[in-house]
C-alpha cells in the first residue's frame, strides 16, 4: 500500500457534537488508509463512534452543533474542504453509502425501478428509457428475481433482504470507487445477512472497489474483510489484517470482545468471559485510556495517560495500549 496512493486516507479526523451536557467527542482523532480493491471493517459497539465516523467521511453531519477537524482524502482530494455542491456530486458517483435500515432509506411512495433510475440520472446524462434499462440490469445483478415485476413494486412490498439489495443496486448505480456500508445486515435475519454479505463481497471484487464495512458483529467483520479497525470511545484502538487480529490481538479490549461472544464451537452452558461495566461516556472522557476502567490489565499509568496508537515494526498491525496482551512486540 505504501507504493501507491491509497483510495481513501483519513488523517486526524475529529467530530465533536455540542450538546447541553457538554462536548461529545464522538470521533476523537481517527487516521487510517484504505487501498482500492480492499475491504476494511470498522468494528465497534454502540457509542464507539463508528457510524459518526462513516457519516463524517461522507460529510453527512448536522449543519449546526458539530465541529469537524482533520482531512478525508479520496484519491488525493480533500473531501473535508469541499463545499456542499461539490460533495453532492461526489456522493453516489465516487463514494456511495449503504445504510442499516433499507425501509427508511428508500422513498415509500416511489416504485423501486424509478428510485434506482433517479440515482443514475442524478449523476449521468442519460435518457429516462436508458436509465430504466440500466436500473433493470442493476437490479438483476444484485440478485432480485423477476426483475421486470419487482421494479414496478413499492418498497413495502419487498422483504428486508430484498430492500437491502435495492439499496446496494442504488449504491452501485454510478460505479463508485468506494462503498461505505453502515451495519448493512443488522436489521436482517441470518440467512438474509449471509446473502447480502456474499453479494457485497462479490460486487466489490467484480468492480474492484474499496469497501468500508461498519459493524458491531465480530463474525461479520471476520468474514470477507482484509483488515479490521477496532473502535472504542471514538478512537481506533487496534487495527490489523483480519487473520492477524484474530490470531494475535494486542489490545485488551479486542481480546475481551472476542472472549465475551458465545461461540458455536463451545459446549452449552460455557461460562462467558463478560466485560464488566459498560462503554464510557464520551463527554469529558478524562486523560487516560478509555478502556482502563473495564480492563483486567490496567495499571496506574493507564488512568493518567492515553496510550498512542503504535505500529508493530514490519507489520500493518497497530494498537494503543501500555500493557498489550502477550507483552510488547
Amino acid at each position: 500500500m505504501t507504493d501507491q496512493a491509497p483510495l481513501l486516507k483519513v488523517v486526524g479526523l475529529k467530530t465533536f457534537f455540542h450538546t447541553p451536557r457538554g462536548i461529545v467527542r464522538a470521533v476523537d482523532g481517527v487516521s487510517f488508509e484504505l487501498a482500492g480493491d480492499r475491504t476494511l471493517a470498522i468494528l465497534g459497539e454502540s457509542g464507539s463512534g463508528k457510524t459518526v465516523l462513516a457519516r463524517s467521511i461522507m460529510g453527512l453531519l448536522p449543519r449546526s452543533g458539530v465541529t469537524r477537524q482533520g482531512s478525508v482524502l479520496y484519491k488525493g482530494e480533500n473531501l473535508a474542504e469541499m463545499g456542499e455542491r461539490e460533495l453532492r456530486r461526489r456522493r453516489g458517483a465516487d463514494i456511495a453509502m449503504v445504510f442499516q435500515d433499507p425501509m427508511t432509506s428508500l422513498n415509500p411512495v416511489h416504485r423501486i425501478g424509478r428510485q434506482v433510475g433517479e440515482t443514475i440520472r442524478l449523476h449521468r446524462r442519460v435518457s429516462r428509457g436508458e436509465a430504466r434499462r440500466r436500473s433493470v440490469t442493476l437490479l438483476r445483478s444484485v440478485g432480485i428475481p423477476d426483475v421486470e415485476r419487482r421494479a414496478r413494486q413499492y418498497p413495502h412490498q419487498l422483504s428486508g433482504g430484498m430492500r437491502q439489495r435495492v439499496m446496494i443496486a442504488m449504491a452501485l448505480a454510478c460505479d463508485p470507487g468506494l462503498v461505505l456500508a453502515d451495519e448493512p445486515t443488522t436489521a436482517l435475519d441470518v440467512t438474509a445477512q449471509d446473502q447480502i454479505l456474499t453479494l457485497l463481497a462479490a460486487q466489490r471484487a467484480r468492480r474492484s472497489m474499496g469497501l468500508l464495512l461498519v459493524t458491531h458483529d465480530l463474525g461479520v467483520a471476520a468474514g470477507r474483510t482484509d483488515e479490521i479497525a477496532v473502535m472504542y470511545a471514538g478512537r481506533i484502538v487496534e487495527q490489523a489484517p483480519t487473520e492477524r487480529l484474530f490470531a494475535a490481538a494486542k489490545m485488551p479490549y479486542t481480546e475481551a470482545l472476542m472472549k465475551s461472544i458465545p461461540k458455536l464451537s463451545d459446549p452449552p452452558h460455557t461460562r462467558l468471559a463478560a466485560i464488566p461495566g459498560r462503554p464510557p461516556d464520551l463527554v469529558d472522557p478524562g486523560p487516560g485510556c478509555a478502556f482502563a476502567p473495564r480492563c483486567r490489565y490496567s495499571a496506574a499509568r493507564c488512568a493518567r495517560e492515553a496510550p498512542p496508537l503504535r505500529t508493530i515494526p514490519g507489520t500493518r498491525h497497530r494498537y494503543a495500549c501500555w500493557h498489550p496482551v502477550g507483552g510488547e512486540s
Partner: protein
Amino acid sequence: MTTGTAHLRAPGEALLRVEHLVVTFPAGRGRTVQAVSDVSFDVLPGETLGIVGESGCGKSSMGRATVLMPPPRSGSVIFEGRDLTALHGEELRRTRRRIQMIFQDPISSLNPRRRVGDIVTEPMAIWNKGGPKERAARAREVFEAVGLDYDAVAGRRPHEFSGGQCQRISIARALVLDPKLLICDEPVSALDVSVQAQILNLLEDAKARFGLSLVFIAHDLGVVKNVSDRVAVMYLGRLCEVAPAEDLYRAPAHPYTRALLDAVPVPDPAARPAESDPALGGEFPSPLAPPSGCRFRTRCPLATGRCATEEPRLHEVRPGRHVACHHA
C-alpha cells in the same frame, strides 16, 4: 395437519407441556394468518429450552401464547399439571404468576415514571405478599441476585440506567414472585456484545439459585447454544427439529437447521467461505399462503415430489433427536 408430538416426554415429568398450539391473527380483508401452526413442546424442571428461528417464524407468538397473552386459537398449555387454557379469572392469574416473562427491549418494558424499587416490589403488592419489611427484604435479595445495589438504585427511574442495567431490573421484577418458569423473548438482542455476556451469565446464575426452568427465544444461534439444554428450530410456524443442544449444533439433521448454522458469521477468519454461495437462497414464503406439505420445501436442496404432498412429522432419528423431514 400436525407435525406431531413424538418429541414430548412423559406428561408427569414436564413442568410445562404445550400441545397442538395454534396462534392466529387477523390479517385484514377477512383473512387470518397462522403464526403458530400446531406446535407442541415441553420443558422439564431445571431445563432450558431454546427456541430459534428467523423473524416471522412464530417464535415470539408461541412464547406469548404460553402465558395466554393473547390466548391461543387452540391447543393446551399444561403447567404444573393444570391446563391454563381451561382456567379463568382469579384461578388463571394465580397459576400464571409462576410463569414470568422477560422482553427484548428492556427500556420500554419498564414504566418510565415509576421508581425502580417500586417497579420491582409492585408484583408483591398486587399479590399482597408479606408486609413492607418482607417485601423490602425480598426486593433486596433479587436486586442482589441481578448484581444491583438496592439502596443505590431503588429511588431512581429507568431512564437513568443503561440498556443492560434495565434488563437486570426486568429480571429482578420477574424473579420477585418466585416463579418456576421464565420465558425470555430475545432478552439480549438489544444489548451490546460486551453487555450481552453479563446478562447471559446472570440468567444462568439466577436459574441455578432460584431453581428455574427457562424458555429462551432468540434468533442468535450462538447465544441459544450457550444457554440451552435442548433446542427447537422453528420455520414458518412449525417445528423442524428438536434435539439436545450439543447434538443439534454438532450434527444438524434438518436441512433448514443446517442452512441456519452455515449462515452464521463465525468470528474466525479461517472459516470464511471466500467466494462461496449463500447458505440459503430464496425468501421466506408468505405466512398467509404457506407452501403445501413441508413448509421449507420451496428453499430446500433436498426437496422431492413427496415434500409437496405430504407434510413430514417430527420423528425420532436417534434417541432424543427429532426431525420433521422426509429425507433426514
